[in-house]
């Protein structure tokens, strides 16, 4: 028999594969990426989410005021508009806000705020303000923006205690955006593990796990939350509280993911190529890692992404009901709870800004999930 050329010598084409854009050489992830790229709504959502999370990470820096600071002079102040042209029609290069002066409404005698066009406070960037720890590590007092004392900047108005809504929304996003992520992360791991066992071993173990999932899922969620949060001792530090709530969410959330994993596991187990690997003598562990996991991991990412909005809503709902995060810590749910009086809707509608942010976040997550789902199986025609 003639000797064959050794592979290494023929590598030129192989070498090029990394650079070539040829779909023939594209792995699963690249194909998914190419498909995802076509989904414009999902791409836009990804950008918005990235901005939201960036804001959450650098919240203390972005927020002009801290969580605790309040000013009783400015209770229920409306949002200040950022302006470039002043009352006299003069253009200013730097955006500015007007100061506020309080007046009485001549009819209702209610206290209202009007812009004081005499006091013009230009926005200043990178100003010194309250002390905080940047990323929880570096002590600093630098803030993204602010105005000179005694001016105040309330971009989205203030609440009933004279706290800046914008700062509170940004700071609250730290909790509201991270709890779902951590919660889904934990349920992802539990779901993958338990669903994998259920799908792989089958038999009575599968039946038992499936029944357990059904029982957990048949619990009405509201009383369950109440029961679980009643079990949380009162007056505990914010961090511990946070952990407890994440655990509550994970406890409920893993069931969905376990089902997805199990379903995919069973479907893939009977695929011809998995049987082919089995016949070829590939070990079970390797079959799981090389064939089954890559097969459903993309679906899992989709399921996870689509599970996040549910958790955001759940956290909001829990805090709204006073079962979750409690003041002085804040989350969007806490903010909405504070805004739940009907007079707010009529008189101080800016207190409902957190609602808008919640809707925006949930929608973008859903769009992102849709895009991922369409891209998850690039081999389907």
């Amino acid at each position, binding site marked *: 028999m003639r000797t*064959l050329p050794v*592979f290494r010598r023929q590598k030129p084409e192989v070498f090029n594969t990394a650079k070539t854009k040829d779909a023939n050489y594209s792995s699963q992830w690249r194909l998914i990426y190419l498909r995802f790229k076509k989904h414009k709504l999902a791409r836009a959502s990804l950008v918005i989410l990235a901005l939201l999370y960036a804001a959450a990470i650098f919240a203390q820096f972005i927020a002009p005021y801290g969580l605790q600071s309040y000013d009783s002079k400015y209770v229920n102040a409306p949002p200040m508009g950022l302006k470039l042209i002043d009352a006299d029609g003069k253009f200013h290069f730097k955006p500015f806000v007007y100061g506020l002066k309080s007046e009485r409404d001549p009819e209702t005698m209610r206290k209202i705020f009007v812009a004081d066009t005499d006091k013009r406070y230009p926005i200043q960037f990178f100003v010194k303000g309250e002390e905080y720890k940047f990323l929880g590590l570096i002590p600093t007092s630098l803030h993204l923006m602010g105005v000179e004392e005694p001016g105040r900047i309330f971009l989205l108005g203030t609440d009933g205690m004279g706290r800046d809504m914008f700062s509170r929304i940004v700071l609250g996003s730290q909790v509201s955006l991270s709890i779902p992520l951590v919660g889904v992360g934990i349920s992802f791991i539990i779901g993958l593990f338990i669903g994998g066992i259920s799908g792989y071993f089958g038999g009575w173990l599968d039946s038992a796990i499936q029944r357990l999932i059904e029982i957990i899922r048949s619990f009405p969620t509201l009383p369950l939350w109440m029961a679980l949060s009643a079990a949380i001792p009162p007056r505990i530090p914010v961090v511990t509280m946070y952990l407890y709530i994440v655990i509550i969410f994970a406890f409920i959330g893993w069931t969905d993911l376990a089902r997805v994993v199990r379903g995919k596991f069973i479907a893939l187990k009977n695929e011809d190529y998995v049987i082919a690997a089995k016949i070829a003598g590939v070990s079970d562990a*390797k079959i799981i890692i090389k064939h089954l996991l890559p097969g459903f991991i993309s679906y899992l990412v989709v399921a996870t992404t689509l599970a996040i909005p549910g958790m955001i809503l759940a956290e909001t709902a829990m805090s709204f009901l006073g079962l979750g995060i409690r003041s002085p810590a804040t989350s969007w749910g806490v903010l909405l709870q504070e805004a739940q009086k009907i007079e707010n809707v009529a008189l101080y509608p800016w207190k409902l800004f957190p609602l808008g942010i919640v809707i925006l976040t949930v929608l973008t997550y859903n769009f992102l999930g849709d895009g991922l789902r369409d891209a998850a199986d690039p081999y389907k025609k």
Partner: protein
Amino acid sequence: MTKKILSVSNINKYFQVKSKTALFRKPASVRVLNDISFELIEGETLSIVGESGCGKTTLGRCLVRGMDASSGHVYYHTENGEQIDFLELKGKKAKPYRRNVQMIFQDPYSSLSPRMSVFDIIAEPLIANFKLSRAEIEQKVMEIAEKTGLNVNYLQRYPHAFSGGQRQRIAIARALIMHPRLIVCDEAVSALDVSIQAQIINLLKDLQEQLQITYIFISHDLSIVQNISDRVAVMHLGKIVELAATESLFGSPKHPYTEALMSAVPQPDPELNKSRIILQGEMPNPANPPSGCHFHPRCAYKTEKCVREAPELRQVGENHYTACHYGEELNLQGVHDETASVI
């Protein structure tokens, strides 16, 4: 010299069927394989034909251990004459025998993992069974790729870059890489277009000649079966109803079902389709098979005895077995070499 490679004896397979009405009752079971026994000679091609639901695919899967048979034995004869019950072997012990028995699937789209490059797919069995250096693996993969007519420059591509015929070549390369002695081809060419089908059949034949491989060729297409096999087993409802050398089976079938199957094949010849036997009715439900001979409700030659007694597979000629009470008496119509003259 005829050397046995596999002896299959009394394989049975039951499938549990979930009954909709019974919550606590024991689930019903369907007998998909009914006492299948045959022997396989090294280097031959044994075809298993039958209509869908006859159990041919299940049989194939049981033989390669892709599925466990409910009862029975599959004795594997090693090269130095040892006889091992393949079905008894578990785990690591089975490995050395396993690699001697490989399989090619029907659908080349689902039998190749879309997430692995072609090189990785072909190399996978090697990596799983031997400790080889990267260079050795590359060498072997190249060798087999060339043998199966694959372009070695395209091995780093993913399966979705290949057409059906090319994919089936990849599947064949994967099955061949460990130099198995036996390959089970489960409808290996049915999903392919006619012109590609011929390429793959020729490739399988060439490989057999070069490497002395034994094939079990599972198919529903009698024309292909006649072209490729040395012996043919006809299955009906989980049973082998006729087993014979190809010429003998096609020339003078000894089971009415075989006759009807052959007659039903539409021939690519407008003048030939004269006297055709068209079977009435459909395949009986395997969950509730008819009494006696399972074929009797559709058989034109049935008698009282067929309804009462189930016929056993018995020898009626040299290398010719049938499971029909009247195998010798019926003068059944075969196909003759009259079409060969066309073109």
